[in-house]
């Protein structure tokens, strides 16, 4: 499978990465080179093979059902959570207007 300019522009949009037409055009051969190379995977016989989901067998754990069981990842951390925000306002993350 290969991609064209329109497809790359769509991928850029899905990825939320703004790209100029020139950048999209430059990316087309790069992605096609990589996609042509990974294409060799299709020759592998995978009949009856389940896709890997966990590389080392492990069990899902649940945390204790307690408020602030771990103070580091619990609540009441508003200021720490907002400390690195580019635009924190009134205790919230500030973003451009989304409702006209």
């Amino acid at each position, binding site marked *: *499978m290969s*991609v064209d300019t329109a*497809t*790359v522009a769509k*991928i*850029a*949009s*899905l*990825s*939320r*990465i*703004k*790209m100029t037409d020139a950048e999209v055009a430059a*990316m087309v051969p*790069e*992605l096609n*080179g*990589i*996609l042509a*190379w*990974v294409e*060799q*995977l*299709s020759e*592998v016989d*995978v009949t009856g*093979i*389940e*896709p*890997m*989901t*966990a*590389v*080392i067998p*492990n069990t*899902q*754990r649940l*945390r204790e059902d307690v408020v602030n069981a*771990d103070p*580091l*990842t619990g609540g009441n*951390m508003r200021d*720490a*959570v907002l*400390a*690195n*925000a*580019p*635009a924190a306002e009134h205790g919230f*993350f500030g*973003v*451009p*207007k*989304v409702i006209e």
Partner: protein
Amino acid sequence: MTDLTDLGIAAIRKGVADGEFSATEVATAFNAAVAEAQGALNAFIVTTPEKALDAAAKVDADRAAGKPLGKMAGVPIGMKDLFATHGVQTTAASKILEGFKPQYESTVSAKLWDAGAGMLGKLNLDQFAMGSSNETSAFGNVISPWRRPNDTAPLAPGGSSGGSSTAVAARIAPAATGTDTGGSIRQPAAFTGIAGIKPTYGRCSRWGVVAFASSLDQAGPMARDVTDCAIMLEVMAGFDPKDSTSLDMPVPAWSANLSGDMKGKKVGIPREYRLDGMDPDVAKSWDDGIAWLKDAGAEIVEISLPHTKYALPAYYIIAPAEASSNLARYDGVRYGLRDLPDGAGLQDMYAATRAAGFGPEVKRRIMIGTYVLSAGFYDAYYTQAQKVRALIARDFTRAFEQVDVILAPTAPSSAFALGEKSADPLEMYLNDVFSVPASLAGLPAMSVPAGLDRSGLPLGLQVIGKAFDEQGVLNAGLALEARAGFTARPEKWW
């Protein structure tokens, strides 16, 4: 007195404990070495001499008060800038995180500080750990301390842990943390003549480590020798309830149980790793390694890992797929860079921020990942890659029914010059050909220095072990190290 910067973890720890020198003297010596090298090597993004001195002062005070000292007491280390450090800028070498000061400490770095280590600074790396030469950092290339004879051309320190490898090889840090997604500890260790181990997936907590590909990312130590790696890994490893894939297992006493005696052990030599057109020096160093392990008492067994050639293409679907998902968090809202063009809405802000913040290789991988996960292509690419990954893991499981460890080269060549491979992403990816299979299978693997090639540059040998058998890997590494007698170090030009 010996130059303190010539010492590794075990020697520093012992010297401090015995009162031969103080932790403060050690920190001062390494701080000076870091400052002197920074302009030429660019190994650090941020230096934190005061952190190294504060930790050292605490160790000296504890010793004076007769308190027990930790396993890393008095050892100043470099911290790869992928680990969140409380109040100290953490960037993953990307502009999108410039200025980000975490409000918490990663589990691995916290364990190291608790054990008495101090921080010399945050080490440079490939942006978001995506690269094999340290040329994708937004904070400039790291320059290897190694040079070819009579040639000043700057060489790659390997990647992504290139700041770590350079710092240890240049003796400006006795040890450093690394992370390994497809070879990012082992390949830079091989390029710079140092040792490094990636433990079994889940040994070291990923909590507070900037995520690249979560099913592959593993932290590990990079140090001068195998013993130092064992000591540091003991401190870094351990169960962490804050990481859902953390292994709930005790941490073995790897350093106390080190033994280079390979009697009764079987070492597998995978025939598929012997590539057509293999660099003759790499092939020779592999043969040397086989002879050394035989000399240590091991039996050599030829094995087959039939799906080896598919590991790299599978990796370059799986890792970008996970990256495209993980890196969705960089949106200009919660932390890091925000680019808000005049009159832009929320969606435009996301796109502008990510365009301005991510480097070209990061964008490339996000886009590949987005494509292979998109509707209509998911099964053909992603599901197929995960099936192939299962086959690669099965190859290893079958091989380990016959052998205890596997020996292979770490990388297909010695260090290349900066710029030599950066024009073609595919050529760069091929550098991980020997390291990626163990990553896909989650297995412990380490690189130890084997010797120098015809141009006087280090080559590494890789030992791959069974899941949870870091001891077997370290022991084989020790047997190689004892026989390689690798004492070469870069001549100081910085």
